[in-house]
C-alpha cells in the first residue's frame, strides 16, 4: 500500500489552472523529490496534499483512505508539513517549538506527558539541536533554525513528511545535513516528498523525482531518467554536466 496517492489532481486559483492532471504516489522508505522551475506549481501541490487547498478535480488518498474522510486532527497525525518560510511570531525557546509537533496528539487541556517529552528529546537529538533547547529561536542562525523546524516536524512522528524547500539558503554542510537527516527518516519506514531547487542534491538523495512544468508532470521516475538533458532543456532551458563516479549526479552548467 502506498503512503500517499494523488490521482488526476486539478487545481485552479483565481480562474487560472495551476495544476493539471497530476498523479503520483509515495511509498514507504522513499524520498521523492519535487522539482520544476519557479511557478510550476510545486508549493500549490503540497498545499493541496495537506488539505489547505481544495482540488477542483481528482483526489488524494492517505494510507489507502480518501484524504477528505480524515478529520483535521487525524490528518495532522499522519502528515507532517514544513512550509517554505519558517515563520515564528514570538521569540519562543527551541524546545517549545519542537514541542508544538505534539499538538495533534493533545487535547486542549492536556499537558505534555513523559512519553511526549521523550519523543521531543529524540527529535532534537536526531536533528542535532538538543544543545539549543533553551535558546530563543530568534537568536539562531539560519541553518540551526531549519534543523529546529525539522525537529518540530519529526516530533509529530508523521508517516508522511512534506517539506517545501528545506535547504533554501543553507550552506553546503547544512544542506547535506538536512538531506542526510531525511534519508535517515525514511529508513524507519516513512515517506518524504521534498521540494528542491538544487538539482545536484535532488540527483544525489532522491529515490524518485517528479518534474513539474507549467502545472503538469513533465517526467517522473529515477533521477537519471528525469534529469536527462532533454527534460532539463525543455523545462529549465539549461544544460548540465553529469557524473556517475560515486552514484549519479547532475550539476547545472549553463543557460541555453
Amino acid at each position, binding site marked *: 500500500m502506498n503512503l500517499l496517492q494523488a490521482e488526476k489532481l486539478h487545481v485552479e486559483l483565481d480562474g487560472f489552472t495551476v495544476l493539471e492532471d497530476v498523479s503520483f504516489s509515495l511509498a514507504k522508505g522513499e524520498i521523492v523529490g519535487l522539482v520544476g522551475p519557479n511557478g510550476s506549481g510545486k508549493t500549490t501541490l503540497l*498545499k493541496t496534499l*495537506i*488539505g*489547505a487547498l481544495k482540488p477542483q478535480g481528482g483526489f488524494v488518498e492517505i494510507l489507502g483512505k480518501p484524504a477528505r474522510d480524515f478529520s*483535521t*486532527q*487525524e*490528518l*495532522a*497525525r499522519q*502528515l*507532517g*508539513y514544513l*512550509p517554505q*518560510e519558517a*515563520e*515564528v*511570531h*514570538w*521569540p*519562543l*525557546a527551541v*524546545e*517549545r*517549538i519542537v*514541542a*508544538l*509537533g505534539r*499538538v*495533534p496528539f*493533545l487535547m*486542549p487541556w492536556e499537558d*505534555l506527558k513523559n512519553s511526549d*517529552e521523550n*519523543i521531543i*528529546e*529524540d*527529535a532534537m*537529538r*536526531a536533528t*542535532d539541536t*538538543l*544543545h539549543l*533547547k*533553551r535558546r*530563543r529561536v530568534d537568536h539562531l542562525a539560519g541553518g540551526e533554525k531549519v534543523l529546529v523546524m525539522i525537529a*518540530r516536524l*519529526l516530533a*509529530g*512522528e508523521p508517516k508522511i513528511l512534506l517539506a517545501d524547500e528545506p535547504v533554501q539558503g543553507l550552506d553546503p554542510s547544512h544542506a547535506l545535513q538536512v538531506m542526510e*537527516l531525511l534519508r*535517515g*527518516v525514511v*529508513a*524507519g519506514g516513512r515517506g518524504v516528498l521534498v521540494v528542491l531547487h538544487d538539482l545536484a542534491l535532488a540527483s544525489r538523495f532522491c529515490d524518485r523525482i517528479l518534474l513539474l512544468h507549467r502545472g503538469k508532470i513533465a517526467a517522473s521516475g529515477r533521477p537519471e531518467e528525469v534529469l536527462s538533458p532533454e527534460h532539463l532543456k525543455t523545462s529549465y532551458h539549461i544544460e548540465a554536466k553529469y557524473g556517475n563516479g560515486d552514484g549519479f549526479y547532475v550539476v547545472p552548467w549553463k543557460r541555453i
Partner: protein
Amino acid sequence: MNFPVRSSIPKGVSPPSKRSQSPWLLYSVLGGLLCVAFFGSVSVGALKFSLFDAIRHPSSELSFIFWDIRLPRAVLGLIVGATLGLAGAAMQGFLRNPLAEPGILGVTGGAALGAVAVFYTGFATIFPMMLPVGGILGAFVSVLLLYLFAGTLASVQTLILAGVAINVIAFSGTSLMLNLVKDPYAVLDIVFWQMGSLADRSFQHVFLILPFVLAGWCLLLWDGRALEALSLGEETASSLGISLKVLRARIILGTALCVGSSIAVCGSIGFVGLIVPHLLRPFVGYRPGKLLAASALGGAILLLASDVAVRMIPSLVELKLGVVTSILGAPFFLLLIFRMRKKML
C-alpha cells in the same frame, strides 16, 4: 523512535535538564499579589474601620459598607481586570501582534456605544439584562469589523488604522446619542459612566454580567494550545490539526462576551490588556498559551491596584478608574511604539 542519533553534546557532559519550565511559580506569585490587591481594595475607602469588626457585627453600618459597597466593588474589579488582561493576551496571540488590545482596537469603544444605546433608549431601566447584551453586541460588531478591515497578520499600521477607524465610528455614534439626549443630567451620567469606574456598583451588577463573562473566559482559555501553534503561522497551525475557522469564531465570540459585558457595567477602561500581557510575556517564555491565565491574574491585580490608587490619591472629586488606567497606559503605549519603530529602522 528510530532516528539516527547524531548529538553534538560530547560524552560525559550531561545534556540540559529535562524539566520543562513550569509556570506554576509565576501563577503562585501572581495569586499572592492578587490576594494582597483584593484585600487592599476591600480595606481602603473614605471610612477607616477594621474588617474584623464589620464581619463580627452583621447588622452594623460598617457591615453594610463592607458587604454592599466594598466587596462588590472589589469582586467587580477582579472580574473586569481579569477579563481585560485575558482578552488582551488572546487578541495579541491571535493577531500575532503585541499592540492588539480591546481599547486601542475599538472593541471597548464599540461596547461602550452598545451600552450607551441601551441607556439612551431607556431599555436599561426596563430590562437590566439589556445593558450587558448591548455591550456584547457593540463589542461583537467591533471585533467583526476589525477582522474584516485588517484580517489576521495585518501589519501594525493596518491594525492600528483599523482600530482608529472603529474608534471613530463608535465615538461618533456615542456623540450622536449624547447630542440627542434632552436631559442634561443624563448627559452628565453618560459622560461620567464612559470614563469607567467601579464605584457604586452592587452585587446585582456582578450577577448580571457573570454568566457572559464566564462563557467568554472559557472560550478564550480553551484556545491556549491553538494560539501556541499559531505562532508558527497559519499554514503550519492548520497542518497541526488546528481549525482556523473555529479558532477565529471562538476568539471573536469570547472577546465580545466578556469585554462587552464588563464594559457595559464599568464603562470604558483601557490599556489593561496592553500593559499586562507585555509585562508578563517574558515570564512565560513568550508562550501565547501560558500567557492567557497569567494575564488574567495580572489584569485583575492591575485593575484592583489602580482602583485602590483612585481612592487614595487626594483630590476634590474621586478620580475615575478609566482615567487612571489611561494615564498609566498611554505613555506605555507610546514607549512600545517607539521601541518597535527602533527595531524596524
